[in-house]
């Protein structure tokens, strides 16, 4: 199973037939495994890595440190849920160290993101403070570098 997951994480466009060939497994086995992983939320979706900086789309991403007071009974989860339900929130992690949540927020402009923090995130009950860091350039995401490296010049040799 893990081998199949690693391949899909590398490129989710691999077809069951390709994965079957590469792993030496039966194609039906691959299909069944993927289906089961989807059902069990081991696979939580498929997406595409877009470098929006190369498009005309205006987009801003911020990384926000959030400190909170954990709630009785629910600990962090209840507040987490209240944060991640917003569409603006791309990712949310509970962190060790000097703050509690790391929230990745996307928006169309600095103002839009700032407004989200001021009007939606900061007022949530239990949130003590926020510190917003805007991302200036995305170099690498999900193991993929976004800068295009130069190609070495063509070589004619026989090895």
């Amino acid at each position, binding site marked *: 199973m893990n081998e199949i997951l690693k391949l899909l994480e590398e490129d989710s466009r691999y077809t069951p037939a390709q994965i079957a060939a*590469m792993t030496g497994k039966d194609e039906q086995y691959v299909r069944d495994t993927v289906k089961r992983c989807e059902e069990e939320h081991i696979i939580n979706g498929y997406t595409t890595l877009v470098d929006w900086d190369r498009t005309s789309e205006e987009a801003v991403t911020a990384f926000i440190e959030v400190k909170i007071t954990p709630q009785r009974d629910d600990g962090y989860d209840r507040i987490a849920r209240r944060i991640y339900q917003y569409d603006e929130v791309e990712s949310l992690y509970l962190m060790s160290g000097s703050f509690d949540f790391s929230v990745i927020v996307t928006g169309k402009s600095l103002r839009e993101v700032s407004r989200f923090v001021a009007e939606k995130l900061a007022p949530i009950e239990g949130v003590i403070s926020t510190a917003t860091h805007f991302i200036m350039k995305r170099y690498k995401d999900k193991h993929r570098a976004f800068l295009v490296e130069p190609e*070495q010049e063509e070589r004619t040799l026989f090895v």
Partner: protein
Amino acid sequence: MMDYEKLMSENVRSLQPSGIRKFFDILDTMKDAISLGIGEPDFVTPWHIREAGVYSLEQGFTKYTSNAGLIRLRGAVTDYLKRRFDIDYDSSQVFITVGGSEAIDVCIRAMLNPGDEVIIPVPSFVCYGPLVTMANGVPVYVETKAENEFRLTAQEVRDAITPRTKLLVLPYPNNPTGAIMERDDLEAIAEVLRGTDIMVLSDEIYAELTYGQRHVSPCNIPELYERTLLVNGFSKAYAMTGWRLGYVCGPAPILKQMLKIHQYGIMSAPTTSQYAAIEALRGGDGDIETMRESYDRRRKLLLKGLRDLGLSCFEPRGAFYMFPKIDGFGLTSDEFCTRFLQEERVAIIPGTAFGSGGEGYTRICYASSVENIETALERLGGFLDHLREKR
């Protein structure tokens, strides 16, 4: 006007230029062509290794090293050989060369007197024969067979031995066939060599790239250890082809003589590369594994693809090449590959480029993206359909 041709070494003039050049010439003129022709890793050298090279430059380590190479690197090589292959050498039995290629060259030049014979299994990488010729030796080619999975058999060695035999080349895991030699195969050869003075030149540049079993070196066979010159390098295991770094190991008295050739011809291997190589050996086991697993997936993909197209292909268990049979279409290997390139824009290498015994085969390198391999298979399918219709 001077007749330069006439002035030149007859040995050099007698060498055949590579027939592969025309493929690259055609390839260069094509758009959206796919090359599964060049045999090298498609990975960039892992960053921590590159960084070690860069750091050595920052520190100003830009001078020659000792002829034999950095002591730390030689120590790292012997540690590595022990750790990965259970081979024992001390650092007086190693020196660092400019790629495996130089290591092969110095082995041959150090051992041969004019007229000495060198047994070379073919199909194999193209350098052995010409290097033997330039050392005034005589290459004796032995064709390995598909039915033996392109292993060299004891009988084939026995049949090739003459009183002039000095060296036996063992190029395994093999380029272009992907063949490997297992312990039994090597023990059988050890039996044939017992009592002779024949030395073994073991080119193990693909030793880390085996699938399903670990590489067995002649050095792992007690009777062969004392007569083996081991050649290896960094190009294939660590994706470091451009760094040009390899090494040779063997009996100290031979290495001592051999080092003179390196000393006068090369001085010392590139210093930056040597520092990077220390990092590769110390911290690169994980990289080898990641790359090997990736090649293995593509190996399975290509093998299935070729067999689905109806080609007979022996399952290669080493290196990153596949050597399918393509003789059923009324074309020579060269014609097949030339037309495949011209009509379908995919470069693969005719088996004949690797010596006799390669007719009827082609080498496909699967160190290329899954996308390239799939596209190449698609185009090959179309090409084969076309050839089959014609027949």
